[in-house]
C-alpha cells in the first residue's frame, strides 16, 4: 500500500478536473485513487482497457502480470500493444503505453506467470486485484490468493460475443470457490484462440471491470458483489443475476477452510495455465 496523501498538486487538479467536480468522487476520492494500488493479472483483451482507464483516472500504482509476448493475433483486441512491439513482453509494451498516457502512475511490470509460489506475496502488495486472465487454473489461484490475503477481486471474462463480470470476496460476499466449488471438466473449457472473441467485447468488459475497481478504490463500493452481470453483444443485452451468499462450507473462505496455502491449480483443474494450444472443444 502507498502512503496516504493530504492534498492534490496543481497539475493533478487540472488533469483530473472533470472527475473532481463529481460530488460522489471529489478531492477525497481522488486522493484515495492516488494512493491505491491495483494488481492486473493478465495484459490481454481485458487487462489492456482496464489498465488504460485505471492509469487515466490516476490510480497510484499498477502491477502488471503477464508471462506472454505480443503477437500480431493479439492486436485485434489488446489495444495497449502495437505492431512495432510484436515479440516483446506484454507487460513492457503495456507499461510503455500507460506511461505515455500518464507518467505519474507507477507501473510495475512482472514478466512472469502468476504461480502458487509467487501469487500470495504479490497480491499482498496491492489493495485490489483485477482478474483479467484467460484460463481456469489461474482463476482459482487468483481467488485463493485474494481470500488468503484479504483482498477484493474484480473478475471479468469474455468469449465469442459474450462477457461476464462479478466481484468476489468483498465485504462478506462470496468468493470464486463459493460459486464454483469444483472446476469444470477440462474438455468443456474453450479459450479465445479456439472459440474466438470479438475484440470490442473485451473492451466493454474491461471498462466495466475498471469501473468496479475505481469504485472500490475510491470508497464508493462495487455494484456486482453477490451478483453477476452477463452481456450478450449480438443482442445488445445486459442482464444482472443474483448470486448466492458466501458458503459457510467454502474450502477457501468458509468457516473451516481447507485451502490454507496455495496449491497445484493445474493438477486441480486438469489443465494448463500457460498452454496456448489446447485442442478445439465444443464449449
Amino acid at each position: 500500500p502507498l502512503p496516504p496523501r493530504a492534498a492534490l498538486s496543481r497539475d493533478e487538479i487540472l488533469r483530473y478536473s472533470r472527475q473532481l467536480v463529481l460530488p460522489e468522487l471529489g478531492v477525497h476520492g481522488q486522493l484515495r485513487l492516488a494512493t491505491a494500488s491495483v494488481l492486473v493479472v493478465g495484459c490481454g483483451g481485458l487487462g489492456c482497457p482496464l489498465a488504460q482507464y485505471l492509469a487515466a483516472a490516476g490510480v497510484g500504482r499498477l502491477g502488471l502480470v503477464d508471462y506472454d509476448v505480443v503477437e500480431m493475433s493479439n492486436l485485434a483486441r489488446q489495444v495497449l500493444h502495437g505492431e512495432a512491439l510484436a515479440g516483446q513482453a506484454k507487460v513492457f509494451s503495456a507499461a510503455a503505453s500507460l506511461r505515455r498516457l500518464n507518467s505519474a502512475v507507477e507501473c510495475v511490470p512482472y514478466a512472469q506467470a502468476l504461480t502458487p509460489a509467487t501469487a500470495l506475496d504479490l497480491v499482498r502488495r496491492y489493495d485490489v486485484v483485477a482478474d483479467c486472465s484467460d484460463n481456469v487454473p489461474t482463476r482459482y489461484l487468483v481467488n485463493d490468493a485474494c481470500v488468503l490475503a484479504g483482498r477484493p477481486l474484480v473478475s471479468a471474462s469474455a468469449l465469442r460475443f459474450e462477457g461476464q463480470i462479478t466481484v468476489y470476496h468483498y465485504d462478506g460476499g462470496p468468493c470464486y470457490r463459493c460459486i464454483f466449488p469444483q472446476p469444470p471438466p477440462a474438455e468443456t473449457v474453450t479459450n479465445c484462440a479456439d472459440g474466438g472473441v470479438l475484440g470490442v467485447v473485451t473492451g466493454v468488459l474491461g471498462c466495466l471491470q475498471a469501473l468496479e475497481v475505481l469504485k472500490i478504490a475510491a470508497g464508493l463500493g462495487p455494484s456486482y458483489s453477490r451478483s453477476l452481470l452477463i452481456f450478450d453483444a449480438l443482442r445488445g443485452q445486459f442482464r444482472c443475476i443474483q448470486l448466492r451468499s458466501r458458503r459457510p462450507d467454502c474450502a477457501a473462505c468458509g468457516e473451516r477452510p481447507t485451502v490454507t496455502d496455495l496449491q497445484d491449480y493445474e493438477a486441480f483443474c486438469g489443465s494448463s495455465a500457460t498452454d496456448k494450444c489446447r485442442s478445439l472443444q465444443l464449449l
Partner: protein
Amino acid sequence: MAAPLSVEVEFGGGAELLFDGIKKHQVTLPGQEEPWDIRNLLVWIKKNLLKERPELFIQGDSVRPGILVLVNDADWELLGELDYQLQDQDSVLFISTLHGG
C-alpha cells in the same frame, strides 16, 4: 397430479451450442403425478432438447461443474437447487462460465 407448466428455458455462455445454438426455448412440461422440480426438468431436457454429448451439460443427476443455474435471474442455490419446484411462467437460465480474456 401436477398441471402442465409453461416454462422459459434459456442457455448462455456457450451452453446454447449444445442446443443448436438456440438460446431461448419456450417449453411446455406435460402434466404428471409428481410436481415438476429442477431434477425432473434436467431429465426432460436431456430427453427432449439435448441431442448429443450430454456429458458436456449433465453430470450425474445435476448439471456439470461450471454451469450456473438461475431461476428467474436468481442463483438456484437460494431456492433449493435440484429440489426447487417449478411454477408456471418460470424462467430457468443455464449459463456456462467464461474464462477467456
